[in-house]
């Protein structure tokens, strides 16, 4: 089942900024990462999906229900990027409040509070005032509030922005644990390493438009680089190898080539050996998410410069 499906979803502010014609599909049980440079429209898209912003045009289905509908909000959780909570409430009172807002019964709230506190690692802080929490603890309690209703779909908007490296690692573990329990996570983050570590699927947005979307594996192996060391690199070999990909660099007897995908690599090795060259070294490297991101975002900007 698709947890999120958008159809040309657009949200603009007085005809500018925001996000435009977004077509996404997020399957159940996945961690879906949304990436983009600052001001690309990521937060606008997240806020539109959770119903905080009214779309300018297009539509979307969240858990099979129309965007912003009462029914879909029963089963979603949301941790905003910039948020604060009632500082005068204790952690337990805050979680009770959010349970009540989710219209949970008293018994269900009582049962759920220790569960979420254990999950986010704040056991023992039930009676502490939220105002006395550190930034990292506030981020965690925010996540606990979003998890009170055992959401099927969890939106996290920059969830590790206030966390130290250990906190980030814990947050990654929490996300992976939630995925294990069947929760779908829509993660908006500018931390590429974080997205690369936990996400199954990723979408990259630039200047309000989707520039790439797909399985993480597929995106990373879209363009692979192969380094080949031979006994000699003749002009004839260079001509032949151009059929397999784009030559990036040649230095002495080492050649770097960009091939279409991972499956091309063994075929290329076979071809070299069959042609009678001596193959001393073949090193295959797929792109990092950062490579893909930089290429797509800078590529888009270059295109804009060329058009202008």
């Amino acid at each position, binding site marked *: 089942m698709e947890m999120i499906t958008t159809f040309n979803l657009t949200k603009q502010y007085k005809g500018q900024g925001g996000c435009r014609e977004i077509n996404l599909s997020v399957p159940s049980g996945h961690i879906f990462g949304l990436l983009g440079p600052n001001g690309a429209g990521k937060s606008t898209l997240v*806020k539109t999906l959770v119903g905080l912003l009214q779309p300018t045009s297009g539509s979307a289905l969240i858990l099979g229900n129309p965007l912003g509908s*009462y029914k879909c*909000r029963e089963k979603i959780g949301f941790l905003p990027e910039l*948020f*604060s*909570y*009632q500082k005068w409430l204790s952690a337990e009172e805050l979680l009770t*409040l*959010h349970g009540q*807002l989710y219209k949970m019964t008293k018994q269900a709230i009582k049962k759920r509070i220790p569960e979420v506190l254990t999950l986010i690692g704040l056991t023992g802080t039930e009676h502490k005032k939220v105002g006395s929490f550190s930034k990292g603890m506030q981020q965690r309690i925010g996540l606990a509030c979003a998890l009170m209703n055992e959401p099927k779909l969890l939106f996290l908007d920059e969830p590790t922005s206030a966390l130290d490296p250990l906190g980030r690692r814990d947050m990654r573990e929490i996300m992976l644990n939630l995925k294990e329990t069947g929760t779908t996570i829509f993660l908006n983050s500018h931390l590429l390493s974080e997205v690369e570590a936990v996400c199954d699927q990723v979408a990259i947005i630039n200047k309000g438009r989707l520039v790439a979307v797909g399985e993480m594996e597929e995106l990373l192996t879209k363009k692979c680089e192969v380094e080949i060391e031979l006994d000699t690199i003749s002009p004839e070999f260079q001509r032949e190898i151009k059929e397999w990909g784009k030559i990036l660099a040649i230095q002495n007897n080492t050649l770097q080539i960009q091939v279409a995908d991972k499956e091309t690599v063994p075929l290329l090795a076979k071809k070299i050996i069959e042609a009678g060259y001596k193959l001393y070294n073949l090193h295959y490297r797929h792109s990092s998410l950062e490579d893909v991101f930089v290429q797509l975002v800078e590529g888009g900007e270059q295109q804009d410069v060329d058009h202008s």
Partner: protein
Amino acid sequence: MWTIAKLTYQEITHRRVFHLLLLLTLGFLLLYGLGLHYAYQDLPKDGELARIITTEFISIGLYLSAFITAFLTILGSAGIISAEVESGIIQTMLVKPLKRWEIIIGKYLGISIMLIIYGTFIYSAVLGLNYYFGREFYFLYKWNTLKALGLYLSIPLVLASVTMWGSTFLPTLNNSVMVIILYGISIIGGFIERAGSFVDKTALMNIGIITSLLMPVEAMYRKMLNVLFRSAPGQFTIFWDSFFSGKYEPSKWMLVFTVFYILFFLWRSISVFSKKDI
């Protein structure tokens, strides 16, 4: 909706400005009580004149207490939506299975409950102090006292509805300024209308009526005094044309207008907030 109402009530009563106002209220009641203590000692024993002076004492007390209540209302509710939008608190609420009108009505109920408790306390304290120090001159009819309380409480409820509306689209500070200016216009309009009624100048009275339509708090204050000082059925009326109450009592249509005024601003608050991008 009741969860929001309870939260709003708790939120306001946790604010420093509320605690400060409570302290100031106690200071005001202490000074007022001290004044009444000495004033009633020297009051002439002539029943008619003493009653007239008593109405003035009560009017002054209620006027100042209504002023404090109005400021509590404005300062307590100016950021009721806007401050939560600015801090991000509202984001976590709006994604819950709640209708936006439930948030507006819940918040209005929360602040209204606090204002009703506070207003009833300060109104009762003013009348109670007058009863304590001037028992022999006391003449108020209990049912009128209750009816007048209802009118007295309508003042903060009107202000809260306008402040709520402003808070849906204005930043907290701008909203406070807007409502204080409207409240000021209403008070000045009330003065002009009273002055007009004493010198029988229709133009002045019309200015007062127009400002009452802009914000009917001053009209409700005058109606409250007229009802409060009305005698019990079968007794002769001791009411006189006080500076505070004016010569003419606002009609029952002004009361109906006030009810619709509150409903209109609540409806506008819901309407603006429902379409608002957060």
